[in-house]
């Protein structure tokens, strides 16, 4: 019998990820189709330039950067599971945490993709490589973001890899080996989110972003949307696979989501008060966002929808009898996820540009190219997530183990 090595692992993982039920193949096929559409749109964008997007010199970041911002939050949220599981030895979370890390990895891959498609010269991106190019660190917050995101990606790949690989070999992972990295990744998660918030908050040119609450609000909304999303994924896994998730995990995650959503609402209220109690010139972006300005109101329907969804979901989650019912829990998590996606994406990035620094009010709405590319990248994220969770589940349920670790006659 050969000794297990990582090549076997990746080979088996590949086989696992590419085989499955008809439903699994259909799902992955749909995602692939969306990715192809997205690639076509990206090809158009590469050929013509960013002129095929809805962005202009006035609103110079749009859907891509909005999604990027939101997804950083999603990635950071994996920490909500990591912290109690590895450090506090909370066995309840054990089954969920690998999924959480899969979500983080997929979200990070999407983040990097969104930043790349937003670049005017992606073929010059090598200028960002320290030493080879010119890495304007520590002045530029964007270089900080590049560092922390890639670091976080590495951490979230390494830790689960180590654990899964150990199980694959039929061994028990050695806590002393991975715990330091877990502790590091907890701080790192807060870091990626604060750094991303500082990216915006550091720009005095844009009063809408230039406020100290932006960072904390980013964290609160991330810790609502993130675990909310993980609840949804676990819900799917629980019903679709043999990997059962115990109710107490749902309850704990729902608790986290609820508290974070409540804090997020409090901060939203505080923000609204400052903007509207005595509106100054700096409140104009908020004015534009919530009520429209000079007859321009492209964002008003979006943000109002987001607020309604947010409030409804938070209220439902806050009521114990409702939250305990699984379908209601899943539905309100979906609403909350959608609400925060709007609020933190389109509702945070775009109004920062409107009105412009010289008072111009120019609306932004995404074009088909942006929508297709965005769809393609999300499909790619789900593709990764599905493949990663499938492998993780098969290992955790003992169906994917190395031959040497197999106990008599068991089928792979």
């Amino acid at each position: 019998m050969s000794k297990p090595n990582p090549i076997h692992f990746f080979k088996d993982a590949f086989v696992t990820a590419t085989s499955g039920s008809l439903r699994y193949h259909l799902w992955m096929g749909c995602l692939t189709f969306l990715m192809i559409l997205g690639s076509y749109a990206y090809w158009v964008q590469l050929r013509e330039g960013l002129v095929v997007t809805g962005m202009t010199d006035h609103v110079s970041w749009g859907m891509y950067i909005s999604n990027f911002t939101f997804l950083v939050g999603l990635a950071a949220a994996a920490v909500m599971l990591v912290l109690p599981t590895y450090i506090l030895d909370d066995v309840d979370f054990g089954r969920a945490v690998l999924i959480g890390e899969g979500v983080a990895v997929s979200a990070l891959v999407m983040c990097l993709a969104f930043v790349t498609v937003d670049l005017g010269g992606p073929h010059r991106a090598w200028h960002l490589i320290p030493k080879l190019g010119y890495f304007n660190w520590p002045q530029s917050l964007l270089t900080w973001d590049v560092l922390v995101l890639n670091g976080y990606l590495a951490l979230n790949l390494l830790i689960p890899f180590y654990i899964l690989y150990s199980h694959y070999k039929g061994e028990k992972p050695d806590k002393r080996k991975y715990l330091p990295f877990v502790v590091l990744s907890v701080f790192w998660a807060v870091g990626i989110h604060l750094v991303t918030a500082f990216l915006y908050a550091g720009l005095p040119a844009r009063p809408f972003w230039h406020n100290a609450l932006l960072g904390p609000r980013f964290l609160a909304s991330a810790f609502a949307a993130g675990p909310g999303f993980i609840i949804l994924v676990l819900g799917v896994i629980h019903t679709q696979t043999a990997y059962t998730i115990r109710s107490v995990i749902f309850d704990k995650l729902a608790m986290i989501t609820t508290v974070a959503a409540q804090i997020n609402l409090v901060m939203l209220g505080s923000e609204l008060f400052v903007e509207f109690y005595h509106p100054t010139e700096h409140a104009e972006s908020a004015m534009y966002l919530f009520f429209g300005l000079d007859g321009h109101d492209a964002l008003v329907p979006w943000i109002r929808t987001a607020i309604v969804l947010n409030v409804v979901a938070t209220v439902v989650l806050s009521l114990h009898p409702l939250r305990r019912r699984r379908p209601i829990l899943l539905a309100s998590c979906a609403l909350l996820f959608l609400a925060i996606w709007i609020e933190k994406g389109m509702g945070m990035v775009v109004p920062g540009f409107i009105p412009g620094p010289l008072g111009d009010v120019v609306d932004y709405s995404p074009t088909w190219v942006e929508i297709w590319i965005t769809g393609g990248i999300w499909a790619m994220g789900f593709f990764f997530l599905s493949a990663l969770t499938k492998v993780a589940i098969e290992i955790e349920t003992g169906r994917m183990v190395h031959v040497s670790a197999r106990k008599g006659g068991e089928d792979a």
Partner: protein
Amino acid sequence: MSNREKIAEKVRQWLKPADRRRLRRDDGGADTRFAEGADAVMNKRLDRRQALKAMVTGAAAGAAVVQTACSPLGGGSEKAQLNWEEYFKKNYRLMTDEERAATVTRLERLSKLEQNADPHIQTTPPQKGVLFGYAFNISKCQGYMDCVKACIEENNLDRGSNMQYIRIFEIENGQDGLASANGDFYHEVPAEGHYYLGTQCFHCENPPCVKVCPVGATWKEDDGIVVVDYDWCIGCRYCEAACPYFGRRFNWSTPQIPADEVNQEQHYLGNRPRKKGVMEKCTFCVQRTRKGKLPACVEACPTGARVFGNLLDPDSEIRYVLANKKVFRLKEELGTEPKFWYFTD
């Protein structure tokens, strides 16, 4: 917008890429008329492929090594070779004088090969003891926009998107905020009861745009001019978000300038034609001012509303204005220290 217009707009969006492709195929001559044609796009694709290969082979560390290793890939044509070397050149600030001379030679040769043009690209450095400053007389400006036109022609601005560095705002007397200003007026000037105020990049002494650039593609030179290295910019547009004065412009598509209108007297950091996907902005006409000339806008202004000069020279007109007129700057509270003042008679 009516529903019909909306649909028409959608259809246009759908058709645009295909249309362009058709046009490009049918009308090969049209491309060469523009400073940056389809060739540039082609070459870019080539670059990407080669870069990938270079990364894979791990040879990216030295452009020279890579170049010899991979030049067969480019087909060996002179143009491909030049583009290849251009792709791996350094940030302008890090180049030695020889490297600067080499890239200028390559760029001039590429213009010859691609557009049959003979530009002269200078690399004139900042002059000692010079710090440029600008003052704008709001009592004099009448909104004629001659400055805007002169700027477009001098600086090879994209005619396709009608790019303009200078904006002239029409403001009602008695108002002071830009919020009430009209930045797009199309009527006879001067309009009764209004005054005019021009903006452009203010060449801040403490420029937020420079701080945020992740690759150091934009910086402040010793004579105070804030420049962009067009070949180093990756097009992230962080600087555009950071500028409090709407001073920056992005090339959303390939800039188009009729070949006979290209200003061939160029500066590497100034008005040489740009590519799509990079940032640009006013450079105080670095190609002119470092040779002792006035910026094109100052020269073109028929009312004498624009004053430009060396802030370190006590006898300059700009110093006179600063010492003797009531001056103000926009958004001083942001601490950007623009070197662009407004004054009245």
